């Protein structure tokens, strides 16, 4: 896919655009060359605890930004605030230069800022296809005054259905399209929700743990799909705990801990940042647990680590021998 389309006046291929994302140094809250979202002093307290306390945050346009951080860091809460699903104690933020603090969630979505939920929300008693159609915009038949007249909305309905078919195929849900969404598995619901959010061709899509529960083979193809969204001129912001995924597709990583932005930068750089390692990754983050080599490395490190049970007789199934044996078995298949 090429980056040339109507939304791209400069004729830049966003897939290969290597211009610097930040202006100046990659510090927490740094300015971006071309931000799509700019947030200032956004705070949200629940009782005594401050769930979100973001001084300044800019999300780069036409890039894939990962938002990472430990459980309870405030990532979902920040999503809720930015999309109007929750009200902050203070703060303001803009989307494409428009102030959208206090704007209701459906208007935010209509402006092109569409989000998915960590706890998936599918309409169980509608079919997968109806779920998809519901995601579409500009369907005149959604107005009460036109709903009775199929000749008015029938044409648009066909376009929507065609678009939905394409997306469902990409997300491997095409065989399920006439089933009730409630009959989908957990991972399939994640996929449906993500596909549905793309029905409007949003400008910014915000995915809250899109790959949680999706099997590795499909994850791979979906990662490619997310990358390709960039080529279509979309901006992606996603929350993810899987560092491999972050490394593979993110152009930029924002790290949150205890409600604050603690680090920002390109993935490789962020993962070396002591503050991040401290807050999130732990000491053994750079080990690739997918291959035997990595496991031996980890073993060496852990054996040196006093607090680890590896290398003692308590290791059990997490003992390197046990894991290696299983990996070999899988590779043999």
């Amino acid at each position: 896919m090429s980056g040339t389309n109507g939304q791209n006046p400069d004729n830049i291929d966003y897939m290969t655009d290597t211009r610097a994302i930040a202006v100046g140094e990659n510090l927490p809250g740094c300015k971006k060359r071309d931000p799509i979202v700019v947030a200032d002093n956004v705070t949200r307290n629940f009782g005594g605890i401050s769930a979100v306390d973001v001084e300044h945050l800019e999300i780069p346009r036409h890039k894939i930004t990962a938002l990472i951080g430990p459980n309870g860091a405030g990532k979902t809460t920040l999503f809720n605030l930015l999309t109007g699903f929750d009200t902050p104690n203070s703060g303001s933020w803009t989307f494409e230069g428009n102030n959208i603090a206090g704007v209701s969630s459906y208007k935010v979505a209509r402006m092109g800022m569409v989000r998915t939920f960590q706890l998936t929300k599918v309409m169980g008693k509608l079919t997968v296809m109806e779920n998809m159609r519901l995601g579409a915009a500009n369907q005149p038949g959604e107005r009460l005054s036109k709903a009775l007249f199929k000749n008015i909305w029938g044409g648009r309905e066909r376009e929507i259905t065609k678009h939905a078919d394409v997306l469902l195929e990409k997300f491997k849900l095409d065989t399920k399209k006439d089933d009730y969404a409630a009959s989908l598995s957990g991972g399939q619901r994640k996929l449906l929700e993500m596909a549905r959010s793309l029905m409007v061709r949003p400008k910014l899509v915000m995915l809250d743990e899109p790959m949680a529960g999706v099997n590795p083979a499909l994850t791979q193809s979906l990662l490619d799909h997310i990358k390709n969204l960039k080529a279509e001129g979309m901006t992606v912001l996603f929350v993810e705990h899987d560092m491999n995924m972050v490394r593979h597709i993110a152009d930029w990583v924002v790290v949150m801990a205890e409600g604050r932005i603690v680090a920002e930068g390109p993935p490789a750089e962020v993962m070396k940042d002591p503050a991040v390692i401290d807050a999130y990754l732990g000491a053994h983050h750079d080990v690739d647990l997918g291959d035997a080599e990595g496991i031996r490395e980890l073993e060496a490190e852990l054996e040196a680590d006093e607090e680890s049970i590896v290398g003692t007789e308590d290791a059990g199934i997490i003992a390197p021998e046990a894991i290696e044996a299983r990996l070999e078995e899988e590779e043999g298949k």
Partner: protein
Amino acid sequence: MDFGNILSLALGEIVTPTTAAYALAALGLAVHFGYSGLLNFGQAGFMAVGAYGFAISTLTFKVPFVVGLLIALLSAVIFGLLLGVPTLRLRADYLAIVTIAAAEIIRYIVTTNTLFRITGSADGLSTFQREFDSFNPFPPGTYIFGWSNRDFYVRVVSWLVVILCAVIVWLLMRSPWGRVLKGIREDENAVRSLGKNVYAYKMQALVIGGILGALAGLLFTLPRGSVQPANYATELTFFLWTVLLLGGMSTVLGPIVGAMIFWVVLSLTQNLLAGLIESGAITFLSIVQAGQLRFILVGIALMLLMIFRPQGVFGNKKELAFA
């Protein structure tokens, strides 16, 4: 005991204007709850608003029939907006509480003696149906089941209205507009995240269901030629919910068939019990007690239905599997 007579009485219930009124009001509830997930426990209030709106404007303000009809419907719209504006942004249960209270408020208002000259207080109002009767195209005589021309006329009008409304609701619910409503029923935040103004849709659904309720109120009172507050008590709302559950919630035919079943069962049990008492087969019940017993039987029937066919007569079993 004349079984033939009992049976024909029961079958006659299928097409009475009262059955039509129940069907229409329950159709309104289907729009509210079955399609949009709105818990309206004040449908009797909407019916009362329609009936009194028409009766008062006809009697006190001497407006022509059509104007009275429009006023009745407009009153229902306003009533719906009054209920919806404060509650539809809140959780679903708030609407339930507010509607049940509002329906009672309406009933108390029309019962107060202070308003006797306008509402007729507990006696209610009557003789507002003359103009409606004057439209009767059928010449005097007996029709089909020995109905008079007026009986026939009110039945034809009632069921035409029900059919027309059912077709409109069906058309609405298969449209993208209806899809948004069903989405809201399932998860309103998800629908919000897709850029739909959930509040506006809920309001539209509340008002449309309310209009159906008001029309039902008219179907209920015009044939009787009288409107009394006692007819619009909370139990009416619960009978309508019974009808809705009987027939199936998210269907158009469900409420209609539910209303028919409801009235046939009521009539059968009433007349069977009365027959048994008269013939001396049952001695431990009076006729009055039998009248009360039949509602107990309806309750039992409803329980059995919920156990063995929880989706209602016309409901979709598959949908229920995911409840």
